[in-house]
Structure formats: structure tokens, C-alpha cells
């Protein structure tokens, strides 16, 4: 399997807690993935437009503020509109258990809560990435 998986690491919403997003971005790079990090406070529109422009295979959303049930559905709806159906979406951050099935129903592939290892996340991406040729 050739290693040209492109990942957009995005921080939607107002929270500035980027420790996790930055660790993830660096671990992905060290593992040979191509990473585009959006920086902080991206609107759903900005996230989806970056995903389109960068032609990514995966979007990793990091949300720690509790706004995930507003921001994630909006991003997924915009992705549907832009026909980004084959892009894998994973979410990390402070996501309470009851929200996980709701996010999955909307199209999020996996949710990684605090304590997840970067190794597990990378393995998940490699085995689930859909579009990559």
C-alpha cells in the first residue's frame, strides 16, 4: 500500500486548546502521512474548503470546548454538499459517550477520547481510509 495519505487536521470553534491537535499532526508526519494543519478557530466553511483545496483523504477534527454537536454536523453537511463522500472523518477531544453514536450516525467514522494513543489513531486511518489510490 503506497503511503500518500493526506490528512487535514482542523480546529473548528473558539477553543484554543491545540495540544492534542499538534501532537496528532506531528505523530502523523512522523508516521509518513502528509498533514495540513488549519490553525485555530476555523469555521465549518473554512474547514471544508481547505479539505477540497488540499484534496485530502482524511479530516481530523479536534474539539475540546463542547461545541462538537453544533460544529461537526455542519461540517458533515457541507461535505455532503461538496460531494466529499469518500473522505474519512475522525473526531478527537472531550466528547462525552452519549454523543458518539450520534456523531457516527451523521457520518463520523471514529471518535477518539482523551487517553487515545497516536499509534491507534494512525492504525485506524491506515485501515479505514477510503479514497486513497
Amino acid at each position, binding site marked *: 500500500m503506497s503511503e500518500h495519505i493526506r490528512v487535514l487536521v482542523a480546529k473548528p470553534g*473558539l*477553543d484554543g486548546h491545540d495540544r492534542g491537535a499538534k501532537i496528532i499532526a506531528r505523530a502523523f508526519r512522523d508516521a509518513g502521512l502528509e498533514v495540513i494543519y488549519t490553525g*485555530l*478557530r476555523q469555521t465549518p466553511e473554512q474547514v471544508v474548503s481547505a479539505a477540497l483545496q488540499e484534496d485530502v483523504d482524511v479530516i481530523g477534527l479536534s474539539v475540546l470546548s*463542547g*461545541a*462538537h454537536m453544533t460544529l461537526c454536523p455542519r461540517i458533515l453537511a457541507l461535505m455532503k454538499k461538496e460531494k466529499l463522500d469518500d473522505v474519512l472523518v475522525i473526531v478527537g477531544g*472531550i466528547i*462525552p459517550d452519549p454523543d458518539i453514536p450520534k456523531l457516527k450516525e451523521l457520518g463520523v467514522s471514529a471518535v477518539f477520547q*482523551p487517553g487515545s494513543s497516536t499509534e491507534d489513531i494512525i492504525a485506524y486511518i491506515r485501515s479505514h481510509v477510503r479514497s486513497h489510490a
Partner: protein
Amino acid sequence: MDPLYTGPVADPGKPGEPPYTRGIYPTMYRGRLWTMRQFSGFGTPEDTNRRYHYLLDQGQTGLSVAFHLPTLMGYDSDHPMSEGEVGKCGVAIDSLADMETLFDGLPLGKISTSMTTNAPATILWAMYLSVADKQGVPWTALRGTIQNDILKEYIAEKTYIFPPRPSMKLVVDTFEFGARHVPQWNTISVSGYHIREAGSTALQELAFTLYDGIEYVEWALRAGLDVDDFAPRLSFFFNAHSDFFEELAKYRAARKVWHKVMTERFRARDPKSAMLRFHTQTAGCALTAQQPRNNVVRVALQAMSAVLGGTQSLHTNALDESLALPSENAARIALRTQQIIAHETGVTRTVDPFGGSYFLEKLTSDMERGCWEYFDRLDAMGGMVVAIEKGFPQREIQDASYEYQMAVERKDKIIVGVNDFVSEESPIEVLLIDESIAALQAAKLKALRSSRDNGRVRQTLEALGTAAAATNVNLMPAVLDCVRSYVTLGEICDALRAVYGVYEESVI
């Protein structure tokens, strides 16, 4: 670290005497316990006001306000950027009307209040002062703290609005205004907490925080203030992480280094200018989402290090904070943890009980030396604002945070319940924030905007813009005028954004 430490060690001196390594007061907790101050805020001002009354009824001794992200970022609750965020990470405050509700029935002349606000600190402080006016409490009787530490926002917490230079000017304005009108108020809480939460080491937390302190003093002196007019009101805020003795050494070294900085670098004459007072919060980043009940034990041990380190006030985290904002039950257990340390363990009976320990004294002097080495590097760069613009502290913290994570993944570092001793536990109840809060706040804003004197609003906003553009005018009076006229926080920040611009960080 060595398996055993032996003497001799240098005499660390006495508590209450320079360089204050062992504590700033001669009797410490025998004279007075630390302030039990639980950081708290969620939902509407009404929700949080109820929580404050509850916490005070349970024996809490000071208030500490957590604002929601839109407030911290200078947006009203009905702004598009606020969607999904209202009332989530703290309490929604849009105008003086909300602040009046927040402190309803709480006598500001009798209780001290800490407010975690940085970029919009002038505005929230002005709101607090205005509530005091309405309660008939003179400003000279007010005690409390505004965090107001913008440097660590660029370095770590990232809730900045304006670029560094105008932001530093606003900080100096509060020093000057406080010294003249609100003499018992701590106009800044120079914070290592968030630096540590972003992944720094204990040494980086110490060094960057104290150097931020140096930078604020430099800016205030350049603005023409006398060091002893404002330095006694500088306060600090540290993290209590899990490595027990390392944390103890950090607090002791902090006092020693700050004493030297103030007396030698800045030639302060008032002894109070060289006494480092600090608040401590246990490490949020050390809480685990797995087996969350174990967090009670982590918090108790971390809190013990802060107490043995001589903290002036303390927040103990709730066991459920790795999952959500604390439920009432979890918040009560967190407060009880402090009360158990204070009243059952006996550690308050003697000052700095570990003083003179071979190990602790060695750790303290190592910590101090490491701190001076960082200071030399930061001095050589031209100070903290320049270092931030170069990305230096950000990069140091990022590297440390990555190394920590990799050590956990390699199991060089064991986190119980996360990478070892894993087991399933029944879930705990968590606090859910009602999504209807955004609509409630939006309705309040709509009513406010139609009922207030909008001519007066335009007038005070215009005056604020003029004062901001003048660069040498203290902004506090103009901000107070806006606040009293029920100009919203978002409107005030918009006016300042128009003059100062906004900060965009370059991704490092």
C-alpha cells in the same frame, strides 16, 4: 535523579524572610489558611449565580469566575462565531446586566473574586467595578484578581484578540488604574497553569511564567510607573502536576527567583514587591477520562504539593473534568478534598515541613539554576514579546508535550487506567449544558439593545475609539463609561479591534 541524596545543603533561611524560599509569611497556615477558590462558571448568569451560592454555603472562601469562550474571545452570545459555544466552557456574560445577575446576593465588599479573563480583562473588570458601585461598595474595599496575563495566551492558551503590543498597553493601563483606584486588587495573575497544560515541563512553566512577569514589569516601567506602585499587586498562578517533589521545588524556587529579580534587576524597595504570592490549580491535563473516580486521588496528592509549597489560594479539580464541566456532586468532592487537607492531615501546623530535606533543597536549587538559564536565553532574544514573535516558547512547549505523549505511549511513563491497570468501570453522571442557553442570551441581548439609551452607547463607543487611537491615554475610564451605558462586551471589542487589529498566530 539519584537514588539517594545526602548533605550538606545550603541553609534555605526562614519563612517570612528574604529570599522567601520557605514561604512569604512567618507563620503561613498557622495564621490563616489558604483561600479555597473553586473556578466555576457555566450556562447563564442565573445558573452560575446559584452554583456560587451553593459553593459558599459548602464552605468555599473565595469566588473564581469561568467565562465562556465567546466572552473570552470578545463576541456576544448572538455572534455567528459563538454558535455551539454559549455557556459551554463557562458562564455567558454579554453586558453589565449579566454581571449584575452573576453577583446577585453576593456582597462584593466581603468576598474576594478572581476572574479568568485576559484579552477583554479591562471590560470585565469595569463590569465588576460597576456592580460594586450598584451595591454601594467602594472600590477601595474590593479584593480580587483579574488574570489579565496576555503573554501566556500567545504562548499557550491562545485566547487572544488583539496583537501583543496594544495588548501589553492595556495590561499596563490596569496596573496604573488599580494602583490609583482599586488598591487591594491584584491587577494580574501571571500564569504558568496554561503553559503547563499545553504540555510544558515544570521548569518551562516556572521560567516562562517568571519571565512573563519580568516583561510586564519592564513595560510598566517604560510607561513611567514606579515599580513599588504596582509590583505588590502582581500575583502568580501555578499548576500542581503529579510529580510531587518536583512541584514542591518549583514553588519554592519561584519565590526565591522572583525575590532576586525584583530586588536586583528592578531595585524594588517595598518588601511586598519581592514577595511572590500565588494561586494554584491542580493539573487538568493529568485527569484521566478512564476510571475517572481515580482522579479524586490524583487531585488530593497534587493539592497536597501546593499546600506544602505554600500556596495562597487553591482550586482542586473535580473528578469529572476530563469529560465535562463539573457536576454539583463532583464540585463538592473537590472542595471537600481541600477541607480534608486543611483540617484532618495536620500539615498546616508547621511551615515548609520539607525545608532542609537533602532531596528537596537540591531539586529547588536545580530548578532555580534552570530558570536563570532560560532567562539568559530570553534576555538575549530581546524579551518575551520578541521571543513569542519568533515562536521560541511555543516550540519549546510543543517539543516537551510531544515527548511526554511518546513516553506515555512507550510506557516509559505509566498513567493508571490509561496505559496500564486498565479495567472497565460504570460511567459517571456528567453535567450537560442545555442548548437553549444561546437563545436565552440572544433574547436578553435583543431586549437590552432596544431598551438602553443608544445615543449614549454611540457616544461612549466613539470616545473609546478615540482614547484607544491616542495610545497614551489610559483606557479604563472610557471602558467604564461604555460598560455603565450597557454597551455589550462584543461591541466594545469590535471598537477596539477596529483600532488595534486582531492577532493571527503563525502555525509553528
